[in-house]
């Protein structure tokens, strides 16, 4: 099969650990720590007070602006130790928790009452006859964000400026991150909901064409999705190549269109949505249930029982790992990662909660995560060959080491998608992606400074 995009790498996929395990629903926990920022954009605005009794699905915090999302309670219970009132009368969260990035983030703790009583679901929308605004409003008020990892509010993605000519909805079922199998299992077990969610989304976007992109290491998912989709959507399978599921690479593979440099997918007439988000949209529109749970893969060689779990947001990592029967006695854990091994974030605490975008909890053994000395670039060109964005990683890394951020900007560091292919391939063990992140933040800071002048 021809390559679907330039570059890419083939990391060890590790999916066999959990691919065969059916999705299990996690039991009710005694406590949930629910962060107020489980999305890109402004943190949600708290509307409950300490001591309030809440029901499952009840709004805890409202969207705070256009690019934001509300937060809903994962169960019924009591709001404990959260809020204080600021001088302006605004409620503030003080119960900070450690977020996936390692910094403290505002969060609410819900003490479960054990009854798991749901609040009245929102009315079902007859989406086939509804207008786009009704559907998008529902998606906004149910707090749906991109569940593939980015956690960008879905309602924003579905509201492109009217002059943009969107004609294709692409469902991302590539799941190109090694080890993760949550989307794979979802496609096997909830194919109909995914397709219906896609139909709803297509209706909201006003597009006819739906393409479901899946890597061909999941032939069973390709088969089931093709059968279930029928003539409602086209299923395309691609050769395994990381990062097949990166937005721009997936659009190119599905439509042969390239997103113009520096632009969003809508410039190529496409909107890309993760398959998990489709199920959330289906639940929100048809059943009136907001987003407070998701499928997460718990896996890695140290895990006793790797598997795929339906987890509520706010479930902390210690409880998540307990579901998987903990870790093996003789396999010391070297790294705990939220997400996949290529783009996920390493954690240092088990109090970090599952958020709306937690596709996986991956544990790597100590012998799988050596710490390396970073060596000088020997200009082997491996990074240039594997970069799916056509960048010159070697050149940029040396520029950034010398703090020549303006040169790095000219060498297109801002087009880096941080997929990690270059770092993966580097024989000098250079922390390339980390350097690019550093440069991006420096350049963004400079741009902000310039715009204030």
């Amino acid at each position, binding site marked *: 099969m021809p390559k679907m995009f330039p570059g890419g790498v083939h990391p060890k996929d590790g999916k066999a650990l959990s691919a065969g395990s059916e999705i299990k629903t996690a039991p009710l926990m005694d406590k949930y720590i629910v962060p107020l920022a489980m999305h890109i954009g402004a943190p949600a605005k708290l509307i409950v007070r300490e001591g309030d009794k809440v029901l499952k699905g009840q709004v805890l915090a409202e969207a705070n602006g256009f690019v934001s999302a509300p937060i809903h309670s994962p169960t019924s219970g009591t709001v404990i130790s959260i809020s204080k009132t600021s001088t302006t009368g605004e409620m503030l969260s003080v119960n900070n928790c450690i977020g996936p990035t390692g910094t403290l983030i505002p969060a609410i703790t819900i003490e479960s009452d054990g009854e798991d009583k749901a609040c009245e679901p929102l009315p079902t929308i007859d989406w086939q006859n509804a207008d786009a605004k009704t559907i998008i409003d529902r998606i906004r008020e149910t707090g749906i964000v991109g569940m593939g990892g980015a956690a960008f509010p879905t309602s924003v993605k579905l509201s492109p400026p009217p002059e943009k000519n969107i004609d294709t909805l692409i469902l991302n079922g590539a799941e190109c991150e090694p080890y993760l199998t949550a989307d794979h299992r979802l496609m096997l077990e909830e194919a109909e909901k995914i397709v219906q969610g896609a139909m709803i989304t297509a209706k909201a976007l006003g597009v006819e064409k739906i393409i479901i992109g899946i890597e061909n290491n999941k032939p069973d998912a390709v088969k089931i999705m093709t059968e279930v989709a029928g003539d409602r959507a086209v299923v395309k399978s691609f050769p395994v190549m990381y990062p097949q599921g990166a937005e721009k690479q997936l659009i190119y593979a599905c439509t042969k269109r390239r997103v113009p440099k520096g632009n969003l997918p809508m410039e190529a007439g496409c909107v890309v949505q993760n398959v998990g988000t489709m199920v959330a949209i289906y639940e929100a529109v048809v059943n009136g249930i907001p987003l407070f749970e998701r499928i997460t893969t718990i896996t890695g060689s140290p895990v006793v029982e790797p598997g795929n779990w339906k987890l509520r947001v706010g479930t902390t990592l210690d409880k998540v790992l307990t579901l998987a029967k903990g870790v093996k006695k003789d396999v010391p854990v070297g*790294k705990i990662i939220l997400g996949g091994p290529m783009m996920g974030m390493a954690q240092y605490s088990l109090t970090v909660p599952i958020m709306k975008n937690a596709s996986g909890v991956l544990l790597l053994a100590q012998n799988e995560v050596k710490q390396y000395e970073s060596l000088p670039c020997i200009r082997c060109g491996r990074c240039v060959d594997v970069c799916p964005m056509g960048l010159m990683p070697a050149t940029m890394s040396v520029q950034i080491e010398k703090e020549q951020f303006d040169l790095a900007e000219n060498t297109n560091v801002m087009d880096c998608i941080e997929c990690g292919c270059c770092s993966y391939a580097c024989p000098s063990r250079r*922390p390339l992606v980390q350097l690019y992140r550093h440069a991006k933040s420096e350049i963004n800071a400079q741009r902000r400074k310039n715009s204030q002048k």
Partner: protein
Amino acid sequence: MDNQEIILPDTSNLIVSSSPHVLNKEHVNGIMRDVIIAMIPACAAGIIFFGISAFNVLLLCTLFCVGLEGLMLKILGKSMNALKDGSAIVTGLLLGMNLAAGTPWWICLIGSILAIVLAKHLYGGLGYNPFNPALVGRVGLLIAFPAALTTWPVNRLSPKVAAMKEAISDLMNNDTSLVMLQNSGEFTKAQYAAIKEAFLNKTELLVDTISSATPLDAISQATMNAEGVVTGMPEMEYMDYFMGYIGGCIGETSALAILIGGAYLIFRRLIRWQVPFFYILTVLIVTGIMHMIHPDMSATPLFHILTGGLMLGAFFMATDMVTSPVSAKGAVIYAIGCGLITAVIRLWGSYPEGVSFSILFMNAFVPLIDRISAKKVFGSKEAAQGGAA
């Protein structure tokens, strides 16, 4: 739930670092080790052809380079771990392969100083040197000690040595006489002296003391008189050239041995195939055109490919990662440049050989080539067309 105790991970020993969390196994040290492995056939061929004196040169250059590398790391206060990368061994071996067997130790030392101290560490060490260190060593020596650098011991497996041995046995059998040999013009003075000594003293033929011209030297000394009659053109003995039964530097004579090592390098993806391919192709085309124009006065393109340092240069020196372009497209431009300059020096220059000069020359162009051959950012064409954002 059974009663099995659930163990949670110990968070006191976790590594917290930036993604990606899994890395390819390939490491710089492994790359250098593989390059050394790839040089073994050519080095072995050199030792077979030129004897222990070839081995001594290779060993001396390697020891000097590794020693100087350690010394420079110490002086510059850098981590001695850098010695483990093996790049000094690669430089030392390459330098040795670019010298003639029997090169004096002090020339090896000066070459190593030029390579490791001047070309490598004064520019910042591994990864920062713009010029191939081994070639800087060789070219520096070639300019400083031209005579020593262009005195080639005779190849033990060359037809010339076979003829000398035959002459000795003919002498033994009284099939010929010393006077006849001297007058035949078949042997040079030194060769005749060696035959005479071996015959009179009843000893083995001492090949180390005999020098021979390389085929490229012979070509450059061919002359054409006013009537257009060419004299001094060597016979084209392609099989000897391919096997390496000719005079030359230790590592350059056997095209076969270099091809074996080169194939390994390409197979292990340690060099870009584009470099040797377009380098050799360019030499083939330019010398081919010249041969079509002047078939009498110029050697065939095949001769140019199989003799001199082209094979060694194309597979082992032009391909040096640090001093060649990072992208495949850049590698093509660079290789064509190397080929053009090599061909021009060989055909019209005053040096018989142009490989080292051409590669160093193109090394200087690498930053520029990198810039003009930078890959197109995914979607940049579309951005230019649409003029969006």
